[in-house]
């Protein structure tokens, strides 16, 4: 008769319970450890994803780094159509001191919201944001390193409609960025900007997503950033 077959007394029962208890506690601790490690991993991954953004920030046009020639032109065009020039704001990339493209946004006296895109050496007229193609509108600008060369610099900026929850920018290397969306008013329209200076970082598509993750639209940018055929 071995220990397994021997009739169990009170002491045996207690020892068995204690053993089971220890095993149970060990199991719980092990499970908790696994859950904690998984949770930490998920947080780390989430932080990593959240870090892949195309930042944007609003700041007064008077304080922007836009070259004086372009800034005065933008101000003049804005005033012609009744936009309050004192309230003009630049939507610039995160490192705005080095930003060379983005949006300038402003309001008229009735609260109408307007946006113009600027890039090296050019800018668009101010257009009412509610007239922009929905759910997302994207301007592009591209330049070679020297005349006639391959694309060397790309700038984009865009407007997302109120039903858009997030915007992602797909880069040519296969990665993507979450565009930071900034608002001038409570209209629901928001703005973003991005610039890429290496082929791997060129934006090739922009996606607009709903809050539930459903894709609302995709804008293919590849043909608009390619060098025109001469």
């Amino acid at each position: 008769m071995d220990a397994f077959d021997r009739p169990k007394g009170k002491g045996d029962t207690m020892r068995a319970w204690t053993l089971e208890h220890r095993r149970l506690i060990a199991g719980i601790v092990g499970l908790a450890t696994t859950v904690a490690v998984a949770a930490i991993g998920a947080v780390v991954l989430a932080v990593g994803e959240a870090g892949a953004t195309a930042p944007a920030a609003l700041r007064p046009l008077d304080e922007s780094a836009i070259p004086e020639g372009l800034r005065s032109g933008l101000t003049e065009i804005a005033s012609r159509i009744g936009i309050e020039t004192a309230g003009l704001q630049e939507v610039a990339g995160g490192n705005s001191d080095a930003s060379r493209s983005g949006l300038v946004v402003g309001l008229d006296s009735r609260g109408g919201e307007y946006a113009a895109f600027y890039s090296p050496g050019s800018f668009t007229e101010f257009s009412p944001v509610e007239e922009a193609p929905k759910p997302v509108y994207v301007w592009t600008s591209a330049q070679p390193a020297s005349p006639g060369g391959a694309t060397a610099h790309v700038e984009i900026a865009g407007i997302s409609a109120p039903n858009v929850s997030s915007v992602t920018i797909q880069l040519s290397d296969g990665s993507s960025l979450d565009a930071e969306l900034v608002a001038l008013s409570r209209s629901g329209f928001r703005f973003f900007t991005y610039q890429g200076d290496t082929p791997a970082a060129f934006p090739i598509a922009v996606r607009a997503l709903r809050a539930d993750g459903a894709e609302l639209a995709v804008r293919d940018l590849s043909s608009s950033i390619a060098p025109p055929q001469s």
Partner: protein
Amino acid sequence: MRSRLLLLVATLAAVAATSASIGTQSALACDTSFWNISSEYYTPTEGHTCTAFCCSIHERVNSTFDPYDTVLVILTTAGGSWISSNTMGYNGTTYLYAEHTQGEKVGCYNHHTGTQWVNCRHLEGW
């Protein structure tokens, strides 16, 4: 009667002289029509340009087109080498700050995969 005839001739001469000067300026802008760069079908990757207006660093390009929702506004060297391009929406205007004095050209370009009708013009100044 004779003085009236002289006045008419003088008036016609003045009008003709004025037209000639406008014509010369417009010739630099490719033609004298409202769409002074082009008004025609563009096949894919086709563009048309005109020499930038003399003596100004400010130039703007305006375009209407169909059926696509954008064209590219392009800036090139005198020889046609690409300097920059920007997307522009229907009946939009792009303001170019071009510190170039070497006969650079501005124009419109069809970056789509299908043919579209493009009206394109440039104007001096902002």
